[in-house]
């Protein structure tokens, strides 16, 4: 059974012989069909422009462009911008393209067709990346083509597209440059405003914390030291003054404010106080010697009272002494007498009056001394004392103010770290802003330069090195290839048909088939036995067929020549389509 599957060359030859009529018919039919298709396919012309991407003329080290995307990426972006519906529609309307398609299809379909007819191809070159040093692909140019059934339209539309691309590139580049510049300008303005704000803030802060500013720290310390020393100095002075005052007072107390008056006898006349004291002492001595009613005592008493009035100092001590002696007297009397004894009663009265006198609040202080001091030494000392007291007061005041100042300095110094922190943060903000501002400003200047470069067309640009030519030859369809393929296809498919037909039919073909079925090869393989009659009949049939084909061809050609198109014209057309004319 395996042999059934393996067919030798002779089997195919035999098959070809058996099926040759059908094979020829199928092959020639298909071949004719492909020829017809090849000739009837419309010619498509393609106009191609080559656009070179030129590097910027000014070295990038000097002026850096603000357009930094890769060239091919940029071309794609431009493509998208150019191939908008409105642009394409404008071109369609301008050149009257796709008239038939527009009738049959919605605009979107026509636009799709047009996009397919526009071909954009990058031209790359192998270069070495100057940065990494590795070989890479760089887009150095691109081609832009338009396909159309009319060569003229292909050229015109390609031209239009090229100009659109070039314009769009320029527009795009200057737009990008301008955008960069304006953006940087805005940024700079923003930063400058920020800096102004910070400056104001800083000024206010400085004003508010004038004494605690970090740079005043040392100064404050010095001031404080100085003030402290001043305080010490003042203290020392106060001490000295106090001492002086004490000394002066002591001195003063030893001096009688009044000058001692001497009588003519040279006896010193006492002053009121001295006399009072003397009298009081005398009185005590007298009262011991005499009774109370003794005229000396009474006289002394009156004298004392007058002096007291004069001196003004009612001495309670004296009253108390009296009270004590009266009480003692009363106690001795009670031992001796009854209560109703007149002495006792009298004593009791005296005691109560003394007590009343003692309990009475001190009446209006009498002027100590109405008499002006007249002792010059006393007066001098007194003046000195007063001066010392005045100075002491002044020093105390100044000490107070110094203390206050010291407190303030301390406070400032204490506040300083806090203030410093805030101040530093403000300063940092300010410095940052300033640095940023400077940077942005520098960039802005660069961008300005780049924009100027773009404006003067000195940047990278597209230059049309090959404008779209009028396409003399259609680029599509490749009729020769179609005809050649058609030839192969028709022969192949006719053979395929034969093979399929034989394999599908269960009829036997060839001795191998017999061998496969019967297990034995046929004893003999006989051809169809042809008689002379058969041969001549076949020949005449063939002749008839050939003649009828020729006749039909002539008829068709004549029909073509007179009804459709004159043959000489057709010949020209065919030659041109085959690319031979």
């Amino acid at each position: 059974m395996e042999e059934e599957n393996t067919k030798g060359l002779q089997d195919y030859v035999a098959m070809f012989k058996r099926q040759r009529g059908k094979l020829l018919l199928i092959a020639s039919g298909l071949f004719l069909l492909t020829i017809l298709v090849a000739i009837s396919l419309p010619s498509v012309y393609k106009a191609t422009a080559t656009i070179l991407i030129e590097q910027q003329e000014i070295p990038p080290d000097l002026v850096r462009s603000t357009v930094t995307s890769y060239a091919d990426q940029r071309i794609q972006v431009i493509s998208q911008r150019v191939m908008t519906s409105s642009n394409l529609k404008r071109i369609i309307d301008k050149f009257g393209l796709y008239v038939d398609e527009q009738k049959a299809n919605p605009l979107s379909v026509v636009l799709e067709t047009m996009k397919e007819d526009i071909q954009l191809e990058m031209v790359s070159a192998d270069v070495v990346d100057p940065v990494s040093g590795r070989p890479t692909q760089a887009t150095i140019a691109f081609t832009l083509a338009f396909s159309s059934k009319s060569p003229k339209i292909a050229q015109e539309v390609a031209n239009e597209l090229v100009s659109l691309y070039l314009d769009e590139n320029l527009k795009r580049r200057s737009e990008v440059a301008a955008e960069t510049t304006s953006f940087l300008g805005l940024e700079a303005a923003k930063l400058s405003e920020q800096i102004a704000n910070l400056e104001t803030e800083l000024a206010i802060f400085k004003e508010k914390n004038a004494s605690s500013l970090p740079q005043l720290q040392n100064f404050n310390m010095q001031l404080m030291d100085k003030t402290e020393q001043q305080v010490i100095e003042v203290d020392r002075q106060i001490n000295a003054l106090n001492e002086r005052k004490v000394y002066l007072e002591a001195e003063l107390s030893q001096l009688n404010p009044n000058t001692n008056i001497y009588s003519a006898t040279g006896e010193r006349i006492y002053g009121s106080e001295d006399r009072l004291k003397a009298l009081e002492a005398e009185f005590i001595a007298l009262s011991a010697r005499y009774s109370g009613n003794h005229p000396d005592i009474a006289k002394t008493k009156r004298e004392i009272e007058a002096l007291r009035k004069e001196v003004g100092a009612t001495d309670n001590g004296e009253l108390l002494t009296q009270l004590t002696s009266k009480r003692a007297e009363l106690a001795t009397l009670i031992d001796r007498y009854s209560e109703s004894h007149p002495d006792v009663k009298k004593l009791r009265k005296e005691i109560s009056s003394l007590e009343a006198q003692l309990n009475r609040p001190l009446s209006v202080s009498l002027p100590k001394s109405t008499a002006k001091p007249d002792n010059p030494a006393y007066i001098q000392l007194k003046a000195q004392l007063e001066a010392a007291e005045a100075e002491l007061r002044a020093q105390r005041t100044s000490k107070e103010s110094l203390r206050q100042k010291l407190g303030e300095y301390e406070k400032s110094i204490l506040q300083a770290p806090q203030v410093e922190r805030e101040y530093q943060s403000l300063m940092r903000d300010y410095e940052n802003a300033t640095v940023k501002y400077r940077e942005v400003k520098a960039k802005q200047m660069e961008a300005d330069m780049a924009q100027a470069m773009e404006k003067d067309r000195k940047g990278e640009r597209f230059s049309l090195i090959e404008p779209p030519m009028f396409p003399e030859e259609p680029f599509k369809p490749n009729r020769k290839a179609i005809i050649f393929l058609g030839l192969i296809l028709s022969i192949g498919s006719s053979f395929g048909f034969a093979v399929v037909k034989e394999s599908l039919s269960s009829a036997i073909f060839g001795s191998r088939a017999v061998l496969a079925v019967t297990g034995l090869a046929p004893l003999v393989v006989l051809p169809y036995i042809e008689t002379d009659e058969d041969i001549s009949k076949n020949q005449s049939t063939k002749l008839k067929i050939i003649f009828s084909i020729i006749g039909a061809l002539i008829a068709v050609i004549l029909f073509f020549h007179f009804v459709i198109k004159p043959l000489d014209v057709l010949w020209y057309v065919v030659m041109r389509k085959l690319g031979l004319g």
Partner: protein
Amino acid sequence: MERIHKALEKAREQRNRPGNKPQPRTGKPNYVTAAAVQEIKYTQTQTVEISQQLLKQNRVVAHLKDNETADLFKILRTKVLQRMSINGWNMLAVTSPTAGVGKSLTAVNLAISLAMEGNHSVLLADLDLRRPNIHHYFGISSPKGIVDYFTDDVPINELFINPSIERLVLLPAGKPIRQSSELLATPKMLNLVNELKNRYSDRLIIVDLPPLMSSDDAMVFLPYVDACLLVVAEGLTTNPEIERSLQLIEEKKYLGSVLNKSAEIWSPAAY
């Protein structure tokens, strides 16, 4: 091809060797004797003159010299003879799965080729009783035949026809009949077969049977024959038909097949 070429070469060598020339009929193969062949000099057989032209027109070519197809029949003849002599057979049926494959023509050509070989007399019997057509190939119009032998008891000897080819005798079928299988199954038929087979031991009998698929005639008659040759036609006979035919033929009686109407290059002329 190689093998065939060799075989042909060998056959030709044998033929050309002086000792093996068939004309003097010396060195006869096996049972056939020259005397016996000489004996059947058509004493009772009617001879019909047949024009060569007519035979050629009817595609009977086996007797022609310088004919490729005749050479092919010689190959077939040799193969058939070899197989039959090994088994001691002398009656060969030629049949086919269906009609139209060229069975009768093959039988005629084979018979002529065998007769031309010279060592045997050949009887070609037309047993396709429904559509008898052997006589057409020889241009004999409506002869009496086997049917007449059965129906009218015409003596069998009167039915033989010699178509002016040496050692070839035809037994036509006669008028076409429908009840052919019944006739073939009769004892009279068996007798006839026995007589034909045994009367002349050196005679080869070629029987043209009806197609196996179209009627039961062939099945009825096959038991009488020694061997059977199956004719198939390229592009006409199908695999199932061949398979079914082979089932109908006893395996030991199956002599082989002939592929007819083939486009295959199988010609010794290339040699």
